[in-house]
Every structure is written in structure tokens, then in C-alpha cells.
């Protein structure tokens, strides 16, 4: 696989960039929509989508070697264990959060 084969046409990147800006605008707008508990889901979901575009396209996860996917995803995947198992405590502990 030659180096040149890894590169996409510049226009694709410009479109992706505009998409990410659009998503940022949607995220900002959604903050004013009184979504309640859904607000962080939407906002961070959009952030994750932007990150996915950045990773796959700009940071060329698509190209060889495919091992990159494993490394790129492992960090995020592993955070699930930190978050999830910690929440077994924080979601069920009486006295958390302490009042006042």
C-alpha cells in the first residue's frame, strides 16, 4: 500500500470539517432547549460523533494497519469499566451525595 493511496481528496476533508462545525452548532443550540437529563446525552453524543469523524477520517483510522482500530477503541472501551464498576458504589451508596 503506497503512501498516496492512503490520502483522500481534500474536498472530503472540507466537507467533514463543515459537518463537524454543524454538529457543534447543533450541540450549542440543544443546550438552550431545556432537555433536562437528556441534555448531556445529546451534547456528549454529538461530541462522540465529532470525535468519530476526526478519528476515522482525519486521523486515518481507515488506513492500514487495521490494528489501529483496536488501540484507538481500547481506551474508550476500558473507561466503561472504570465508570460502570465505580457506579456500582455511587449509584447504591446511602449517604452519597452527602446533604449540604
Amino acid at each position: 500500500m503506497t503512501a498516496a493511496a492512503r490520502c483522500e481528496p481534500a474536498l472530503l476533508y472540507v466537507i467533514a470539517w463543515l459537518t463537524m462545525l454543524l454538529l457543534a452548532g447543533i450541540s450549542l443550540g440543544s443546550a438552550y432547549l431545556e432537555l433536562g437529563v437528556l441534555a448531556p446525552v445529546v451534547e456528549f453524543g454529538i461530541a462522540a460523533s465529532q470525535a468519530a469523524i476526526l478519528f476515522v477520517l482525519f486521523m486515518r483510522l481507515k488506513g492500514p494497519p487495521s490494528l489501529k482500530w483496536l488501540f484507538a477503541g481500547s481506551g474508550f472501551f476500558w473507561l466503561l469499566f472504570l465508570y460502570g464498576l465505580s457506579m456500582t458504589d455511587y449509584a447504591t451508596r446511602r449517604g452519597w451525595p452527602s446533604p449540604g
Partner: protein
Amino acid sequence: MATVAADLETPSFLTSENTLSSWLLTRDHKRIALLFFASITVFFFVGGFAATLIRLHLAMPIGFLQPSIYNRMFTMHGVVMVWFFLIPSIPATLGNFLLPLMIGAHDLAFPRLNLASWYVFNLSGLVLLYALIMGGVDTGWTFYTPFSTLYSNGYVLAAAMAVFINGFSTIMTALNFVVTTHRLRAPGMTWYRLPLFVWAIYSTSIVMLLATPVLAMTVLILAVDHVLGVGLFDPGRGGDPLLYQHLFWFYSHPAVYIMILPAMGVVSELVTCYARKTVFGYTGMTLALMAIAVISFFVWGHHMFTAGISIYSAVVFSLMTFFVAVPSAIKVFNWTVTLHKGSISFDAPMIYALGFVLLFTVGGLTGLIVATLALDVHLQDTYFIIAHFHYIMVGGTVSAFFGGLHYWWPKITGRFYPEMWARFAAILTFTGFNLTFFPQFILGYLGMPRRYYAYPPEWQPWNVLSSAGASILAVAYVLPLGYLGWSLIWGRRAGPNPWHATGLEWQVSSPPPQYNFARTPTVTIGPYAYNTEDGSYTAQDGTVHA
């Protein structure tokens, strides 16, 4: 490329260049391994010095150390031994030396990163030494909040920064090992033909990479809380001190597996070679290593059973802890079955390996005891816990480290150590170790708390036994310093393969050439192709030896 090929057949890596800068600026993984060996040996004796003072002090119900000094001693012992000896010990020395050789590569993927890792390690050591000389830290190696952030008058910031910097060294080394294992294996060296030591180093490196960054963030927030007096861990300002413990143990439990996985890899190499028998259940052994690495991340809450986490959380973590014991037990079973009907010789490395299997088993079984919630409420923060983890880390890891050191000593230095002295030291280690730490199980059961500078007089006999054992252990650890050093000058010269072993590292000269192999080998067979009946073997490059 022609000049490079000629270089590949030159003198050994020890003698190819002799200037100081050729060592301090080397890119050779073998030289970097020796540089690391020098550093960790220094720290081993610093941590050992603290242990000596502790055991001398505890030989009496109220010893000679002031309480605040005693607190600084056990803290220093823990911090130094965990981060500056145990974690780097096998990976940065034996791992660095052997990984490229075992996979048939000329060096690691990133040689300059490897050298940088050593310099960063030493920098962190200097910061720690600064903290120790200026007066030390008294929080315990765990730096629990809010004592460490609000009340301790020790050098918490310096110690935290030392640990932070040390983490970079760990990550740099682990990154190198993972990428090297994926990308630089010789032709024919498939994953399932790798020696188990390589699998062990690889799984260790995965744990290092996924756990250490969380420690970095934890000590960083600790430092911010401590220096700026803000309240992320302060209950008085809405913070949760248990959050510190969750974050700390998310790293520190996998950290203990960072310490044991490489040791398991060494033991697999030793057991197969000295029993002249291929390992039982190779695939199971590789899966067990990876399973231990993964499940080790799910159990950290068992350090917090009595800290105030919810009972539901405690039950989850207890269950996970039982799960993590299973792959370890599989490994012990497989080593034992490997020995069965093997042709066993009791050279010093094998004595260390057998000691490992016994002592690790005791440590593991007592781990199940404290994984049980109903028992842990009584045993937590007692000497039972101390005995449990020392059986694994000292009886386990240090035994395996010494075993590997002796096994590969002829390869690294080209010299034999005196066998009788080595066997004596190995047996002395086993004896001294058990005398030191078995009484501590009893003390813990009787209720003696850890990190207390005094105890009721009726417990003195057990403490005296323990301290007596420690003095024997100290001799057993200093002896190798003597005879291994002696061997460098007067030891019998070793050929390429004194143990008649199958690994690629044994198919090159002792010491190895600067770039390991004149030509990249082609691997045609898995590891450990020993014929138990007549002692012949097939090396991994396909050559058959009688």
C-alpha cells in the same frame, strides 16, 4: 545495507563499544536492560533498608523508632518497593533484554524511547530520594485522602510527583513492548509459537498502558487538592475521599498483576527447561495470562470493603475477585502437570521456580480468604493482608526474578555463577521467607493491625520469629550480589546454550552480538519442543539438537 550486515557479526554487545557515552546514549535494548538492572538494584536495597528498620523495631512491643519515623519507614518501604523495584523489575530488565531476542528481532520498535524510559525512571527516583531525604512521607504508600491532602506534614507533593513521573517510564516501556510484539516478530513466529515469557510481558504491558494513566490523573488531583487546598477529595467541601480510593485502586490492583504476570512468564520458561518437557496446556496458559490481565481491572473494590462503599458494590467486587483467581489457579495446575513425568534437575533457577509455585499458591489461596466479605471485615488492615501480598510479591515475584536472573545470567554475561552457592541462596531464600511471613498470617488472625508502631506484648514471640526470618532473608538476598559479581570476573565462561533450551535467545552467542542475529531467523516450530526421554530438543529456528 552491506555495512549493516557486516556489523551483525561483530563482537558481543558488552564489548562492542566501551566508552561511557556508548552506554549512557545506547539504543541497544540489551544495554538498556543492564542500565535498568543497576537502577532497580539500588532501589531494592533502599526499600530493603526500610524493611530492616521496620523488622528490627517490631522485634519489641514498643521499639526504638519514634512513631512518626515508623510511619515514614513503612511508607518509604511501600513506595520504593512497588514503583521503583517490583513494577520495573522483570519487565525493564529481563523483558527489555529478552523480548527482541525471543521474537527474532534486532531490537525493540522504538530504541530511543527505551533509553528515554530509563532516564525518566531515574528522574522519578531522584525526586523520590529528595522527598525521602527531606524527611519522608507518613501516609502509607497508598496516600489516602484526606490525611494526605489536608493533615500530613510530610513531603506528599514530592512523593506524588515522583510517582507521576515514574508512570511515564512505565508507559513508555509498555508501549514499546506492545508495538514490538505486534510488529517485529520474525517470519514464522506466529502468536501461538511465542514463548510464554513473551505472552507474559505482552499482557503485563497491556495492563500498564490501561491502568497507569488513571494513576497519573489520581496523583495529579491529589497534588492539586494538597497544594491548593481545594476539595475534590474533601468531604467538608462536597468531595468524596472514597473517590480517591476508587481511582487509586483502579490502577493499583492491576498494578499487582503487573508485578506477578512477568513472574509467571519466567516460571513457565524455567519449569519447561528444567523438566525437559513442553508446557502442559500452552493455549490455556496464554488465555490465562490475558484473562488475568483483563479481569484484574474488575476487582479493585476489594481493597475498600471496609472503607464505606455500598454493600451491593462490595458483593460485585467480591464476586469478580473470585473470578480472577481461576486463571491463576489454572496456571498453577498446568505448571504442576508439566512437572509430572518430567526429567527434573534441581539447578538454582528451578529451585526458585518451584519455590514460586508453592509460595504463590499460598498467597493466592489466602487471597481467596480475604476476597470473602465476611472474613475480610476481620482481616482487613491486619498482618494477614501483609502476609498475603508478601507471599505473592516476594515469595512470588522476587523468587521468579532471582530465578530468571540466574537462568539467563550465562546468556547476558557469558559467565556461569557458582552453582552450589546459588542453590544455597535459593534454599535460604525459601526458608527465610517462610519464617518471616508465615507468622504474620497468625498475627493477622490474632488481630494485630498493620501500620501500628507498637503492639501488645503477648504477640512478641511471633514478631520475633518474623524478624529472625527477615535476617535470614536479608542474607539470602545479599549473597547473589556477592557471587554474581564474583562470576563476572572469575566465573566459568558459558557457551550459547548451557541449559539446552529451545528459545531463539539460546541460538546466539553468550553474550549476544550487538544486533542479536546475523540474519533474521525463520521460526518453524513452537516453543518447548523438548524430548523428555532422551533430553534432545528442537530449537525454534528448526534446528534439532541431541
